[in-house]
């Protein structure tokens, strides 16, 4: 989440509303001024609450830099402290603005409950927000993401769909993603990634293909892995083998990521940005796909037996000095 960027835009838009129309140049000057000192532009309680969240997220993101050096126990302790600090910050934000959606969203996530319970909290939040603001309505050709004030609601929806995936609710995950994509066709939150995995798990080849076509078949780690899973599940081993080769060649370290999945921290509040085709991207993708991979018990043994796949993982590990 680019909290800083959103804060600046929100404050600038509110200031613009109070001072009247500005030229394009004028508005960009206003944006620069807000960027230089957002605090003095956060005029109302809503923006002060948003500022609180933005600052906490920035601070905590910087604090994760040393996590790799901690052992498991230390990491868990640090994680609990971090979640506690974020929860406290959310409380401060909600004291300023009880309707701050991002603060409520983060509160649900750092409560760190079982995914099933988290889904309950998120659905309640979504319900409350819809009660208060009505449905997200966009006209033909519009993208809800362009309205910076709607973005928190889209983030709630994206978190719901990912949590549906985590709790084995694939139909719900897919439909929630598809409605999110309808509201925001640019799909900045990557609902198509979650949808690809859900449709593969449901063995919905038509749905998967429609989704792929909708995004002009610009693949990503999720769609590549989802295709392998889909074809394996549909018992088309030759096609699955080709898709597996594609996954490994298009995603840096794909074979290694799949055969040696690593822990990925809870998204706060949404999926971290990663470079397309990077190892970071495929690591997130494999983590998200884990419940589906586990549900297909012989998928990993099958993948590791495919010619060249385990060797590719080994070469990647050697190159980066990782354990294999």
């Amino acid at each position: 989440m680019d909290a800083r960027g959103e804060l600046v835009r929100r404050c600038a838009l509110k200031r613009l509303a109070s001072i009247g129309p500005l030229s394009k140049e004028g508005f960009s000057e206003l944006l620069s001024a807000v960027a230089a000192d957002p605090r003095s532009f956060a005029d109302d309680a809503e923006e002060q609450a948003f500022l609180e969240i933005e600052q906490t997220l920035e601070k905590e993101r910087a604090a994760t830099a040393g996590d790799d050096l901690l052992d498991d126990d230390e990491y868990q302790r640090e994680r609990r402290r971090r979640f506690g600090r974020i929860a406290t910050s959310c409380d401060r934000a909600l004291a300023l603005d009880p309707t701050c959606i991002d603060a409520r969203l983060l509160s649900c996530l750092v409560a760190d409950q079982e995914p099933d319970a988290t889904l309950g909290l998120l659905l309640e939040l979504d319900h409350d927000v819809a009660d208060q603001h009505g449905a997200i309505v966009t006209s033909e050709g519009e993208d809800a993401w362009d309205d910076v004030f709607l973005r928190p609601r889209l983030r709630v929806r994206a978190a719901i769909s990912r949590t549906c995936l985590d709790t084995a609710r694939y139909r719900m995950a897919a439909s929630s993603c598809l409605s999110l994509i309808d509201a925001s066709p640019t799909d900045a939150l990557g609902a198509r990634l979650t949808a690809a995995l859900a449709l593969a798990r449901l063995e919905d080849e038509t749905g998967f293909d429609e989704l792929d076509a909708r995004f002009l078949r610009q693949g990503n780690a999720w769609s590549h892995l989802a295709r392998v899973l889909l074809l394996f599940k549909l018992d088309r081993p030759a096609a699955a083998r080709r898709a597996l080769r594609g996954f490994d060649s298009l995603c840096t370290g794909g074979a290694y990521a799949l055969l040696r999945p690593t822990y990925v921290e809870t998204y706060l509040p949404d999926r971290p940005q990663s470079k397309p085709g990077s190892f970071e991207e495929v690591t997130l993708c494999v983590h998200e796909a884990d419940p589906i991979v586990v549900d297909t018990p012989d998928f990993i043994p099958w993948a590791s037996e495919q010619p060249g796949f385990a060797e590719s993982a080994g070469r990647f590990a050697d190159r980066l000095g990782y354990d294999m």
Partner: protein
Amino acid sequence: MSFDPNKEDYQRLGLRYARTLDPSDPFATARAFATFSRRFSQSRDSLPQSDGDRAFHLVTKATDLIDYQLPFAPDEECGPIMDEAARVLEEAIDLDPSCHDAVRMRAAADYGSFEGYYQYLSKGADAVRQDCVARHDEALANGHDEGRVLEAELAMMPYVRWMSTLAAKALICGHYTRCLSICLDLIGDDPSDPSDVRFTGALACAKLEDASALDRLGSLSHAAARHDDSEDGWLLLARIALAHKSHDLELARELVSRCLSAYPHAGITLSRQDELPDGVFARLAVPAFSEDELIIAVSEATVVLEEGRDSSDLGSLGSWIAHEPAVVASCEQDPESSALVSLDTGRN
């Protein structure tokens, strides 16, 4: 698919025996039948039988060893039981290389992975079908007596069991569309669903989150339904899963309470969620709506229950059911449950 192999063994020999009798002498026939049961159980070798009949009898022996003795045997007896079962199956195949049940059961031990066994069954399916259909057609064409319909039915059973096993493995391996299509084909062939493959199909519908397929499965196999208005454990678990997956927890709760009233000691079974080995001949034969039936249904539903992230080993739905207040209460109020708890404590 619960099949009693002993019943089938009895039917096979009964049919063959009937053929040896002189239909023009009803008194002699009646006398002969009066002694059949005794001869079947006490001097089986005195009855006429083919190598195929002898091989099937060995299948019943192997079934008793693998499906009914092995799960309850102490560790030190497991090895000898498995060796004996392997020997018996080998003997059956020597007698009748086209004894598909024996071949299928022997292969179960040869594959280390579910996928390997699934692929094996899948590749062999067409040949088994051809052979069974040929025997079925031959029985209908050549027989002139009342037994020919039964003989034709029995001829198809090895194929039905082959495919039901394939469907069960497809479910475990995550090939849900394939699983459902096998189930629908088998029910299409015979709506009385002798192997109860609709149970496996119901779980595939839950995995595919396809409520309309579950309805279709129900209407196709209505001839097999056991009670007009009560649902079996598999169907209930599938419907609980569909409700839970669409986050309709109120409906899921209502279905859980139906399950609690349909089966004895259901609270304990739904809390424990034990996973048992599948029967190798077929699904274990247990009485309908018995405690054991729900134990088997829950065990087969493990693939549905344990999916999703959850810090317990139970999975998303499994954990929800185990913690559902009605299940917890039913478990606590069940006198059997205190016996279980003390057993567990004793073990620790």
